[in-house]
């Protein structure tokens, strides 16, 4: 049941194969994984935030910032690639840290914190570029998102790291935090620290996704637009409960692959466009509604804060 999403994924891939058998060949499937890679990585990062009971709406604009900054600083110069890559990772970590500290320590709801961060970053990008990004990415930068082998390897590495992290003590304390903050705190979990780290992971994931997307398609000032919703949709599609406390990171990444497969299928059958947004909207609403009607669960797993309420 936990991995039901992979059944859906298999069905979608089969449907794609009817129109386009190429996807069943190794090269075709890997090309599909390459295309899905940024979303898979974003979903892995978003999983940590969502399972801890929060949201990260800033990842889309963070991806844009990463790509625009990279192009401006590298400016076609191969030698600048590695220092800029390091800077981009640091930038992602920093944005995540700010999101985490403001949410966990200043107690600003993450919806507001990360919405604010999204607006700040989009505004800053627009101010800095004036709507037209400058500079160019180097070939050695673009290889990570453009070369299929690199893209697949990075995705596997990120996936493996995410799984290890969820299996470690940290993963369990994070789920406990999302499930019941007070209970977790009373049993010795440092709730604030766990949440801050979750945001830092999400920021890191956005940095990596930005590097991959810039590599895949080049410089654009709209590259990250809407990605935060795609990432949240993917995580929800993977059966992770909005509000936290339930779900697996593997299923979240499966959700990202499924979402990408769905877009590919729509495109293959010539019904792209508006329906993509509709599909995402229906998934988010349906998933939250499905979570709400599981009434018996309420008696087994109390809602956040209930343990202390009586």
């Amino acid at each position, binding site marked *: 049941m936990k991995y039901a999403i992979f059944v859906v994924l298999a069905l979608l891939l089969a449907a794609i194969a009817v129109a386009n058998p190429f996807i069943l060949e190794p090269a075709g499937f890997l090309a599909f994984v390459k295309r899905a890679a940024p979303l898979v990585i974003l979903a892995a990062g978003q999983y940590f935030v969502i399972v801890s009971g929060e949201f990260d709406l800033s990842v889309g604009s963070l991806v844009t910032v990463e790509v625009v900054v990279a192009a401006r600083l590298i400016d076609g110069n191969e030698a600048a690639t590695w220092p800029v890559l390091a800077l981009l990772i640091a930038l992602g970590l920093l944005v995540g840290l700010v999101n985490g500290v403001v949410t966990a320590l200043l107690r600003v709801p993450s919806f507001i914190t990360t919405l604010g961060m999204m607006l700040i970053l989009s505004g800053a990008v*627009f101010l800095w570029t*004036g*709507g037209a990004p400058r500079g160019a990415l180097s070939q050695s930068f673009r290889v990570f998102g453009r070369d299929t082998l690199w893209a697949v390897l990075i995705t596997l590495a990120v996936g493996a790291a995410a799984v290890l992290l969820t299996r470690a003590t940290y993963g369990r304390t994070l789920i406990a935090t999302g499930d019941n903050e007070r209970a977790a705190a009373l049993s010795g979990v440092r709730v604030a620290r766990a949440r801050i780290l979750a945001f830092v992971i999400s920021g890191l994931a956005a940095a990596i996704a930005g590097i991959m997307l810039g590599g895949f*398609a080049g410089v*654009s000032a*709209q590259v990250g637009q809407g990605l935060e919703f795609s990432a949240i949709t993917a995580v929800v599609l993977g059966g992770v409960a909005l509000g936290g406390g339930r779900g697996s990171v593997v299923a979240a990444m499966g959700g990202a692959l499924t979402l990408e497969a769905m*877009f590919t299928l729509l495109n293959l059958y010539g019904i792209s466009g508006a329906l993509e947004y509709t599909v995402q*909207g229906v998934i988010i609403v349906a998933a939250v509604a499905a979570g709400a009607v599981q009434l018996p669960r309420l008696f087994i797993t109390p809602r956040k804060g209930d343990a202390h309420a009586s």
Partner: protein
Amino acid sequence: MRRSTPIVIVAAAATLVASGCTSDKPTTTATQSQNPGASQASATQAPATGTGEQSKFFVQADYDAQLAMRTKTAQGPADKPWEQAIDPQMVGTSKYKKSGSIHLCFSNAAVNNPWRQVGWKNMQAEVGLHKEIAKFTALDAEGKDDKQISDIAELTGKGCDALIVSPNTTATLTPAVKAACEKVPVIVFDRGVETDCPVSFINPIGGYAFGADGAEFLVEQVPAGGKVLALRILPGVDVLETRWSAAKVTFDNSKLQVVGVEFTDGDAAKTKSIVSDYIQRHGKIDGVWMDAGATAVAAIEAFEDAGLPVPPIVGEDQQDFLQKWKQNNLTAVAPTYPTYQWRTPVIAALKILKGEEVPKAWKLPQPKITSENLGKYLQPNMPPLHYALCGCESLPGFPESWGGKK
């Protein structure tokens, strides 16, 4: 990869930031390809060549006029196309004649894309050339009709000697422009308004010529029966609808098979994915038509990454595309919608205030870049999204102000 989800409330806030993205979302996409053999057909009766229904925006008379203008010689200095005019019908302006220093005003629709960025730089530099302009007041409507309406009202009360308007949308801004006409001489450029009260309306030949230039190139270069993929940004925008509708007429009258008409939202990753899907599905795509060149490089890369030769392709005058064209020796063409048109309104305003005649409909030439004149427009020192036909090379501050290197 760009996917907004308007369902969630936050998207409303997001669109405030991404100002200018107010256009309708696509509702239908034509991908049928039933009848590659239909060769002879009139423009109004669309045969089934996979191009779908003709656009509601298509006006046969405008189409005919624009296509005819392409071969006409523009009047004026050949080395300054922004001062040239095709078939000018001059109007007298002696009633606006004024001596002394000038206060020039400008209501700008937006500066939210690279094309408008380059154009805005051109206009500012043009203003700087003229000492008689003592004051230049410009307001940016940030892509919002309501803001531009109040901007225009505000500017008309500020003692402007002439008002330049680049309307955000045609119908909605018409009353505001009409009201301004009663107080100051108005010059409109780029998109139009539904009134002839402005002293002069300046724009290049237009979207039909743009669309036809690209489509005719593909008809010449792609063998009969070849599969063409048409990529559009989004539906419902008049300047883009005219480009596609002219291309559709050309394709309908050709032996080419349009295997898909897709909307890319102007997003590079989405463009690359769509082109990759079509390559996989059809094995081979023989030509790519685009209604704007911003994502042309992404389309080219889809072929490169699939290990296929890049087929004949239509781009625009952005440097990244021109560079790729040169490097890979592509079979390509770049119709243009020149940003040098941003210089003309300033020149027109000064003429009007001197009482000199100006063309009522000031039609600027709209050249296309071909492999013969590519070298002239390729500028490796300029940023990738710079538009080559800026006419800005001789302006002060070039190239640094446009983001280029000396």
